[in-house]
């Protein structure tokens, strides 16, 4: 039975409008807090606490920044975060690509078992080890240093997994050719495999950087002095009582969020692609 074409068209239109509507509302809800953050960072405390709440930009950004800087060395915190995230990223890229390469391109005894065991460790809840982890850091004398935030995570299963996925696609012939030419194993890794793996390294790098940037619980436990705080820790101290100036706090969140958003906007395609590649191979 042939359906009349007109109702179908209307139906399709309604469906489309509905979809656009839902997606649109979703996007607005998603983006609004960021917009609001920006707006409030430009408002004075009195303006923030007015009814109805402000929706357009004000003029007080630099005033708020000034107040913020009096209470918290936010730019130092920014730098700390960059340093910690950057260091961790570089180390992770090195060690995880090494591990991924091994699992991807070598045949060795126990490979399957070792790989599965490694993946299994991803399932271990973090809370289980947090208390002894802290005690250990105390014992090492690493309290109030950046070491606990960088070193423990340098070889993590997720990274190795991601790199393996990618490297499996590297043609064996290239590697074999290099061996014939007399190159050592590490040299092959360093000079041939790594450069080819740049896209995957990019994805892993962004992932790691973001993850490290947002790390909170460990940073809060370890870092004791304002000068050492990373951004999330610094921000968490801005939410307290007594003379809390929300405009200033918002400036802090803007400073903490903007770098991440910018990186993301530039790298979003690759980022999402990398993520999906990893996920769908499950």
């Amino acid at each position, binding site marked *: 039975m042939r359906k009349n074409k007109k109702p179908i068209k209307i139906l399709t239109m309604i469906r489309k409008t509905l979809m656009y509507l839902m997606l649109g509302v979703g996007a607005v809800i998603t983006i609004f807090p960021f917009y609001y953050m920006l707006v409030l960072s430009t408002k004075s405390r009195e303006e923030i606490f007015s009814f109805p709440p402000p929706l357009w930009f004000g003029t007080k950004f630099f005033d708020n920044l000034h107040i913020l800087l009096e209470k918290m060395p936010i730019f130092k915190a920014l730098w700390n975060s960059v340093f910690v995230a950057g260091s961790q990223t570089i180390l992770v890229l090195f060690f995880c690509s090494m591990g991924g390469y091994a699992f991807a391109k070598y045949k060795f005894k126990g490979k399957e078992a070792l790989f599965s065991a490694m993946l299994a460790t991803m399932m271990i809840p973090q809370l*289980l080890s947090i208390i002894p982890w802290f005690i250990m850091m105390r014992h090492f004398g690493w309290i109030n240093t950046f070491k606990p935030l960088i070193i423990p995570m340098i070889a993590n299963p997720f990274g190795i997994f991601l790199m393996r996925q990618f490297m499996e696609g590297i043609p064996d012939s290239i590697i074999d050719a290099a061996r014939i030419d007399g190159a*050592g194993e590490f040299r092959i890794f360093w000079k041939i495999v790594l450069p080819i793996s740049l896209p995957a390294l990019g994805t892993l790098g962004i992932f790691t950087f973001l993850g490290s940037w947002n790390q909170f619980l460990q940073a809060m436990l370890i870092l004791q002095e304002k000068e050492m705080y990373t951004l999330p820790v610094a921000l968490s101290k801005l939410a307290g009582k007594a003379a809390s100036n929300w405009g200033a706090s918002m400036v802090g969140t803007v400073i903490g969020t903007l770098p991440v958003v910018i990186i993301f906007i530039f790298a979003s395609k690759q980022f999402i692609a990398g993520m999906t590649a990893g996920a769908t191979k499950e």
Partner: protein
Amino acid sequence: MDLRLSRESAPYVFISPFYIMFAIFGAFPIIFSFYLSFNMWDGITEMKWVGVENYIFVVTDPWFWKAIGNSLIIFLMTTIPQHLIALTLAYMLYLGTIKFKEFFRSAFFLPYITSAVAIALVFQLLYGQHFGMINAMLKWLQAVPGIGGLFELMHLDLPIRWLGDPKWVKPAIALMVTWKFTGWNLILYYAALQNIPTTLYEAAKVDGASPIQIFFKITIPLLRSVIFFAVTMSIIGNLQIFAEPYMLTGGTGGPANSGLTAAMYLYNTGFKWAEFGTGSAMAYVLCSFIVVFSMLNKYFFRDKG
């Protein structure tokens, strides 16, 4: 100059960093935690062996159960909407007839990459009782005739004290967590949808199936493993949330502990009250919950033939 690794030993050397690090920072702490859970220690004075006393204490502690309850309720309040919304929106994007796909995907993913701490600060303001944006919108909605009546029916008392009223604290936390993580699941589902061969859809359409039928009879079953994976991650993640409730309740756990999650209570016990032994026991009890839930999840998604 290169390290002359043999072809046989190279892989072992390459993967050793992971195992070494895991041994030091992964395995050892867990074992030590297990040992600690049978002791009483505040980090300064001597350790005292107490056997299973810590476990008994934790299991009979009303606040522990309250925290577990809170975590569970928040888990349900956020995980279910997260996946429903993510799947629905991913499907819409996938259907392909939408422009600005890139924009939507990026926008939805944005919350995931930002720091929970920063987000919580903004949400604290959004949740303000008299000056918050959400209450402002609700108040505005109340003026709309039909909706106002609806509010009356639900005994909704405006303005809502999101962070001050025990019964609203959990929804407030759940809402923020949903906002943050839905995008992650969306991307996941979107990618998985891409992997479904279109031929299946063609065949179904030829057979006269409606879009809804296609969705339920073809798409969902094929997405099964991805949904399972995503929900498992949610279980492990959402039962351990710390930063969000910590920030929204100002570290206090909320009025009458309404926002005290299991992770927060563990943090308080272990680090604020310096009861390392009790905290370790609590961690193990909590983890058994996670394991149980994961197993339930696996059972739920088991192959039915």
